[in-house]
């Protein structure tokens, strides 16, 4: 306890000192990230050259990587921080809310305002999220699942790329009924998802008018999950399942089984959450079925609209934070700002010259190894790589995510609503499965809504109306 007071005093003194111009002594910066480990030579080299680049710009920093296992990362990080061992620059993947609540994380907005590169590198959803919760920075494109299918199967159906809901149904029907995997049985399913219908919602929400978490009803805001729009969408899912186009066993299908079904031909279409994931699917599909490419489809036009599901901007779920107790905030932010610069982006996104990419006659070419390189810090919105190595479906994925971006009106709930949130979510998921599997007919929708309200939905709606009416 005594030691902590010293820490506080020291932090105060150092904060004052930080206002002084860069010292000649290198500043020691402690950085912890799930993606950076001392035992990975690539990570160490990456950090070394960042140090060198910063030094060349006049900021002397010595970056010390704090090693935390990536399995169980959130638990270990929480334990460390609670014990008082707080690095300067911290990557969070869960567990940040409680810590932010105690004022241990720095508000990043003023820093970003004064930044040289970072403020222009943000994605639209980053700005929205920072406004609501200014402690985490995660400059990466949004993840919104989109459907992929084997290109050869798609071409065999002879159908055009699906644009409407009916098109999707026709495509999935063709796949389900044609014996494309050649095993003598028409047992291929159209579409599957992993454990919940959330992936499907990504492309079907807007088609049915489920445009946000809270929709305007006749009496005020209502939760989308109990809206008439949702009912129509769930009826659609139930119809898909009935026709064999939606795998009813999605509920017990974990992500690895989902992929297995796709590669082995049990299912024709799955959803990939990001461009990188699409490329992973593509690579594996090529390995299992040589020569087979993937094709990505746009979300369908439905009776109420079209697009990808609204993006939750209440807060970043993961990202970089700077400790408010740190004496090296300037240095920490300098690192982040540098990574947003073109020079930093080349390092973070393209890897090492001679390893992941080479420059021949002024032209940049990527090697095979680029497929295994990943950005450790950020993918700036305003910097594109000099050469494109993402496959066409992956590029389309990225393009769609920007083109169809719409912000959601979900917000962060105070902890006293946690039990209600959990209970209503369980009611929702349980009933969705009952409807989709046919155990309950859609005529029981009102029974479901009543159950939802009774499980705490009324309390949630009341609070939501207060919050949303205030901001609308």
């Amino acid at each position, binding site marked *: 306890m005594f030691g902590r007071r010293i820490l506080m005093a020291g932090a105060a003194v150092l904060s004052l000192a930080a206002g002084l111009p860069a010292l000649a002594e290198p500043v020691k910066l402690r950085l912890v990230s799930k993606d950076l480990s001392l035992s990975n030579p690539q990570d160490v080299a990456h950090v070394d050259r960042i140090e060198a680049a910063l030094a060349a710009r006049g900021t002397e920093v010595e970056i010390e990587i704090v090693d935390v296992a990536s399995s169980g990362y959130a638990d270990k990080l929480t334990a460390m921080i609670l014990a008082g061992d707080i690095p300067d620059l911290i990557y969070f993947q869960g567990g940040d809310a*409680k810590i932010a609540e105690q004022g241990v994380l720095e508000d990043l907005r003023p820093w970003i305002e004064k930044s040289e590169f970072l403020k222009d590198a943000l994605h639209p959803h980053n700005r929205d999220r920072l406004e609501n919760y200014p402690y985490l920075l995660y400059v990466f494109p949004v993840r919104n699942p989109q459907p992929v299918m084997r290109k050869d199967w798609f071409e065999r159906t002879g159908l055009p790329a699906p644009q409407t809901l009916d098109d999707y149904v026709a495509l999935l029907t063709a796949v389900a009924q044609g014996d494309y995997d050649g095993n003598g049985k028409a047992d291929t399913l159209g579409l599957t998802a992993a454990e919940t219908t959330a992936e499907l919602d990504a492309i079907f929400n807007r088609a049915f008018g489920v445009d946000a978490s809270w929709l305007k009803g006749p009496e005020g805001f209502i939760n989308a999950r109990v809206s008439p729009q949702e009912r129509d969408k769930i009826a659609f899912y139930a119809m898909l399942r009935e026709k064999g186009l939606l795998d009813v066993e999605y509920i017990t299908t974990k992500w690895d089984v989902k992929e297995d079904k796709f590669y082995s031909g049990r299912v024709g279409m799955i959803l990939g959450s990001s461009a990188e994931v699409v490329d992973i699917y593509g690579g594996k599909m090529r390995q299992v079925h040589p020569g087979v490419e993937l094709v990505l489809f746009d979300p369908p036009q439905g009776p109420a609209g079209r697009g990808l599901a609204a993006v939750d901007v209440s807060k970043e779920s993961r990202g970089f934070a700077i400790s408010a107790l740190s004496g090296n905030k300037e240095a920490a932010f300098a690192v982040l700002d540098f990574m947003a610069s073109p020079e930093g982006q080349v390092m973070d996104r393209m890897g090492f010259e001679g390893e992941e990419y080479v420059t021949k006659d002024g032209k940049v070419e990527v090697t095979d190894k680029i497929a295994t390189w990943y950005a450790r810090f950020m993918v700036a919105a305003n910097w594109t790589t000099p050469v494109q190595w993402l496959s066409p479906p992956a590029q389309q994925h990225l393009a769609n995510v920007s083109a169809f971006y719409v912000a959601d009106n979900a917000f962060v709930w105070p902890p006293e609503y946690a039990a209600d949130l959990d209970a209503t979510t369980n009611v929702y998921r349980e009933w969705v499965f009952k409807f989709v599997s046919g155990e309950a007919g859609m005529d029981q929708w009102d029974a479901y809504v009543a159950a939802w309200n009774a*499980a705490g939905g009324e309390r949630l709606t009341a609070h939501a109306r207060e919050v949303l009416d205030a901001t609308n």
Partner: protein
Amino acid sequence: MWRQWWPYYAMMAPGLIFFAVFHYLPIWEAKIAFQQVRIIPPNIWVGWKHFETLFASSVFWQVLANTMIISAMKIAFVFPVPIIVALLLNEVRSGPFRKSIQSAIYLPHFLSWVVIAGIFIAALSPSDGVVNEVRGYLGLEPRSYMTDQGAIRWVLVFSEIWRSAGWDSLLYLAAILAIDPQLYDAAEMDGATRWQKMRHVTLPGITPTIATLFILNAGMFLSADLNQVINLSNDAVRSQIDIIDTYVYRIGLQTGEFSLATSAGLFKGILGMLLIVAAHKLSKRLTGKGVW
């Protein structure tokens, strides 16, 4: 008195120190259950707030009921199986055959629940799982066990049996081997059949072990296996197999309230202790031996 007993205390010393430092010191640290945790001191006393939150939730009572039902089912159906396996194994002549069986049945214990869940989900799949294939041969309709609210608890029971029966039987086998062989010789001379020997020699011989394990299991009554439930759970059946630990874990994930987890732990602990005492007294009455 100490002259007589000090050697024993000397032998127990390392163990006692261990318990003091690594079990009781942390319990003292667990006073955070009553406090809001702050990194920047001081810890603010928040009192019973966490307990209130726990008991006020309507879901908590459902979850408590689930926990108790599942534990009861496990005690009734899972607990006896290793005993039976050990008894059967004991009937097989010692030798390579018996060794092979022993070397095989403990293997499932080594698989994590992630892997086991994958195996059971695949085996129980209504479309191509082996169980439903067999049902098909018998002329029965396929049944989706994993999404069936009535069946899912049995899935927990059976998967637990599969995983642990072979491994736990080892303990009972060791207990059987500790029985005085002269008792068997005497029974043999009296012309006892295999089953009579089992009833009159073997079972009484391992009753203390059974009783002890029963009492220990009673203490864990409110702690059905977290990993098992998480991996075998899905939206359709969650309401039936959600246990205290999974519920607290989920809420904790959402809010970062690990103090909630500590209060739940305290609640389970107090009740567990009461159950141990109750089981102990019951066992003393039935078998003459408790846990001490």
